[in-house]
């Protein structure tokens, strides 16, 4: 399986990758992107199985990336890892078929609970 992590913070990308390993997902390949525009290129090249994406990013934010993917007919499994937790944010993402929400700060247990059903 190929997991794409999209976050404008290098620190956060490292923390997510480390937490994935702690959650037991250490056998998967991980690619990274710093914003939605970079992510589109990586998705085209690497065709990931799941995208873990921040919400607030420069250039193209997370919801704009998800919307672009769906408009293009790409149904990749897509989840947000974000500090954004309000109902309006979740509703917006749900309408575009988001698979899960993981709230920052996160734990390995949260990743396990959300990703285990997907990364089988």
């Amino acid at each position: 399986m190929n997991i794409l992590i999209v976050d404008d913070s290098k620190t956060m990308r490292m923390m997510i990758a480390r937490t994935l390993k702690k959650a037991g997902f250490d056998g998967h390949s991980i690619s990274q992107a710093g914003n939605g525009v970079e992510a589109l290129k990586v998705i085209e090249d690497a065709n990931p199985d799941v995208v873990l994406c921040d919400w607030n990013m420069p250039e193209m934010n997370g919801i704009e990336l998800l919307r672009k993917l769906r408009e293009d007919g790409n149904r990749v499994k897509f989840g947000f890892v974000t500090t954004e937790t309000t109902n309006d944010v979740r509703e917006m993402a749900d309408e575009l078929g988001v698979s899960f929400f993981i709230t920052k700060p996160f734990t390995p247990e949260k990743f396990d609970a959300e990703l285990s059903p997907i990364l089988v």
Partner: protein
Amino acid sequence: MSNSIIVSPKVYSANHLLSIFEEATHEIATTALGYDANGRLVSKPNSSGNPGALVALQLDGRTFHLGIASSDPGLRELAAALMMLEPDDDPLSDDDVSDAVGEIANLIVGNVKSRLCEQNSNANVTLGTPLRWDGQKTPRTSQEMVFSNHRIGDTNVELIVLLTTNEES
């Protein structure tokens, strides 16, 4: 989240935002940084002018910037706590420290947004991405600045709220 009942004002002041910011900081200090929640230091004669990170928060048409600042060793300590570094790990580069402190600010201000929306489900709140804060002791003419000092673990931290009072300047 706090269980205290807070009556949300119609127009938020910088001081009201600061009190919410303080509660959010103590929650993130315990959940994301692994510190005890008992650290509070409330002597605040002046702003230190220390560096750190800011996140913009637009609330019902008003622009706030919420920031966290500390000495260089203090910022390094906070970054190491966020990244759960072990004593044997390589030291962080300056860019990594800056990035990590920005992410800490992002976590705290995200928590502030949640609290504001809990208080008032109709609140219109949007967040920016973290910005580097080079330190500033006094507000500019178009700003109101309030701050308070706290202790997170062994680190003295300053919480700053800037309210832009004249959007056109």
